[in-house]
C-alpha cells in the first residue's frame, strides 16, 4: 500500500479525489496511528485516490483556541489555509472530530472553504453505495458494541446517526449507554484537557465515562475520535477490564470485517 502526499501528486501532475487530514494524534500517537493506518487501508481497498499533506500538515489550532490562545490558533489556521488553498483542496476527510470541527466550521471565515467530512460519515456513504462490502459472518456478529459519542461530532455538529449506521453494518448488537447522543458524556479530553492534569475533584472524567460504558456489558467500546479512544482505553485499563473489553475506532472495526 502506497500513501501519497499532495506534494508527490502535484509533481506527477495528478489531483486526488480527496485529502485525508490525518491530524496530530493520528500522526504521532501510537494508538491513533493504528486508526490512521486502518482508514488509509480502507481508502486503498475501496480504490479512492486520496493524498495526505504529510510534513506540510500542522495542528489546526483547536486545543490552543479552546485553551484561550487565539493568537496561536490564528497562526496555525493561517499556515494551514495557505497550504490547503495552495493545493486547491476542495474535499477533506478526517478521522479526528476536533480537526473536523475546526476545518469545517472555523476555517471558512478565515478564508478556508472546503467540503469536510468525518470518516464516520465517509464510511457510511461507502457502505450505502455498496463500495464497502462486509464479510458474511463477521467476528463482531452477535457481539455487544457500545458507541461513545464524541462531543465534537455529536453536540458540536449533530452527527449522531452516521457512526451508528456504520456499526449496524457489523451485524452486532448495539447497546446504548445511559447518557448517549445529545446527552452523551464527554470523555474528558476536549478543551485542551488532554494536555493537562484534571483539576481537583472526586473522579477523573474518563473514569466516569468508562464506568458507564462497562455497565452496558458490551465487549467493544466503539469510538470515533482518537482522543476519546485514549481516554476510554485508559479508563478500561484502570478498571482492569482490558482483557474483556476492547476500545476500537469505527474504522478499525470496519477494516477487519471488510471483504
Amino acid at each position, binding site marked *: 500500500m502506497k500513501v501519497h502526499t499532495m506534494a508527490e501528486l502535484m509533481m506527477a501532475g495528478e489531483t486526488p479525489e480527496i485529502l485525508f487530514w490525518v491530524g496530530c494524534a493520528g500522526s504521532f500517537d501510537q494508538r491513533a496511528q493504528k486508526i490512521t493506518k486502518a482508514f488509509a487501508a480502507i481508502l486503498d481497498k475501496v480504490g479512492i485516490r486520496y493524498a495526505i499533506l504529510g510534513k506540510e500538515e500542522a495542528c489546526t489550532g483547536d486545543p490552543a483556541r479552546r485553551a484561550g490562545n487565539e493568537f496561536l490558533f490564528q497562526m496555525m489556521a493561517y499556515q494551514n489555509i495557505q497550504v490547503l488553498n495552495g493545493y486547491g483542496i476542495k474535499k477533506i476527510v478526517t478521522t479526528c472530530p476536533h480537526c473536523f470541527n475546526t476545518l469545517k*466550521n472555523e476555517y471558512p471565515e478565515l478564508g478556508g472553504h472546503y467540503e469536510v467530512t468525518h470518516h464516520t460519515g465517509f464510511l457510511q456513504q461507502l457502505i450505502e453505495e455498496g463500495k464497502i462490502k462486509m464479510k458474511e459472518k463477521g467476528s463482531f456478529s452477535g457481539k455487544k458494541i457500545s458507541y461513545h459519542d464524541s462531543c465534537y461530532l455529536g453536540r458540536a455538529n449533530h452527527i449522531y446517526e452516521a457512526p451508528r449506521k456504520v456499526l449496524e453494518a457489523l451485524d452486532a448488537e448495539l447497546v446504548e449507554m445511559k447518557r448517549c447522543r445529545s446527552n452523551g458524556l464527554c470523555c474528558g479530553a476536549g478543551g485542551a484537557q488532554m494536555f493537562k492534569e484534571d483539576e481537583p475533584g472526586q473522579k477523573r472524567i474518563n473514569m466516569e465515562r468508562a464506568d458507564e460504558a462497562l455497565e452496558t456489558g458490551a465487549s467493544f467500546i466503539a469510538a470515533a475520535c482518537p482522543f476519546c479512544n485514549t481516554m476510554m482505553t485508559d479508563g478500561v485499563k484502570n478498571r482492569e477490564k482490558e482483557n474483556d473489553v476492547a476500545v476500537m475506532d469505527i474504522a478499525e472495526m470496519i477494516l477487519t470485517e471488510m471483504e
Partner: protein
Amino acid sequence: MHYLPQIIFLVLSIAGIGIFSRKIAEIRRNIFLGKPENLNNQPGKRIQNLLLLALGQKKMFKNPLVAIMHLVIYAGFIIINLEVLEIILDGVFGTHRLFAAPLGSLYNWLINGFEFLAVGVIAVCIVFLLRRNLIKLKRFISKDLDGWPRSDANYILITEIILMSLFLIMNATDQLLQASGNEHYHITGVFFFSQKIAPVFSGMSQSSLVILERTCWWFHITGIFVFLNYLPYSKHLHIIMAFPNAYYARLELQGKMNNMPAVQNEVLYAMQPETAPNDAAPPAHFGAKDVFELSWKNLLDAYSCTECGRCTAACPANITGKLLSPRKIMMATRDRLEEVGKNINTHKQFVDDGKSLLHTYITIEELRACTTCNACVEQCPVSISPLEIILELRRSLIMEESNAPQEWNSTFSNIENNFAPWKFSPDDRDQWIRDIE
C-alpha cells in the same frame, strides 16, 4: 368618596407598572453595557426558535413529566392573566365582572377554564415545592443555590399558590352572593371548582362575604403588581427573557467558536506586512475580564437564567466533583452585572471598584475544568451558552495575563515550534507511512 376605590386602583396600577418599567429599562441598559454584536440575520429561523424553544419549551421535554407540569404552571399563569384585563377595567371603571354580560355563556366557559388552570397551577406548585425541598435532587440541593436563590424559588411557588387561591375564593364568595340575590353580583352560571369550596363560606353574612370577595379581589390584583415588581430581582425573570433569548440565540453549530477578527488581522499583518494599514491600532483587550467585554447576548443570557441547574447536572467536570458549575457561571455574571448597574446608578457612570467578573466572581480553577463539551449549552431550556462566557474569560487569562498551567505552556510551544501539541519532530509527521510500506 364614591370614586375612592377607583382612584386607589389607578394609583396602584400606575405605580406597579411604572416601577416595573423603570427596572426593565435599567436591565436593558445593563445588557447593552456588553459589546455590540449583530444578531438579526435569518429572522425566519429566529422566529422558529422563539416559537419552539421559548413558547413551545422544546428542551423541557427532555423530561416529559416535568415538562408537562411546568407547562401547566406556565399556561395557567399566562392564560389566567387574561382575566387581569377584566380586573383592570373593573378597577378603573368601578364595575364588576364587566365581561360577563357581553360574553354571555362564553364568559362562564372562560372562567371555568381559568379555574381549571388555577387548580392545576396550585397542584403543580405543591408538587414542585415538595420536589425542591424534600426530594434530594442534586441540582436543587447544590451549594450554588445557598441563600437567596433557594428562597427565591420557594417564594415564587408560594406566591403562585396564594394568587390562585385568592382567585378561587373570590369566585366562591361571588357565587354565594349571586345566589343570595345581591344585585351587584351578576348571575354568571356555576363555576365548577369554586362551587366546591363555596360551602366553607356559606355560613357568613352578606356583608362579610362582600368584604371577603373584595379583599380577595384587591389582594389578587395587588399580588400581581407586587409579583411583577419582584420578577426583575428573581430567577423568575425568565418568563420574559426566555423569549428574546431564544430569538437572539446563536444560529451556528455549537462547535463553532466566535472568531476574533482583531487577532486574525494581527496575524495577517505579521505574515503579510504589506496588508497592514498604517493606522492599525491593537485591540483594547483580548477576551473578557469583566462584563463590559462580554457580548450583550452573554449578558442577556445572564438575566434569562432560571437557575434550574440542568447545565450543571450535565457538566462532566461538575459530575466528577470539580469546582466548575455552568449555572454558577451564569449567576455570577448576573450578580456582577447587577453590581455594575448599581455602581452606575450611584455615580452616573461606572467607577472602578477594584472588582471584575474574572477572579472576583469566577476563579481560574473553575475555568480550567471545562472540557468545552457543550453539554451545558445543549441542556439549557432557555438558549443560554455558559460555554461562551467560559471561553471569553479563558482568552483573557491566556492573552492578557499569560496565565496558563505549565502543561499548557508546553503544549503551546510545541504547537508553535513542532506544529503538534506534543514534542515530536514535524519531520516525523508522516513516519507512519514508512511503517506500512
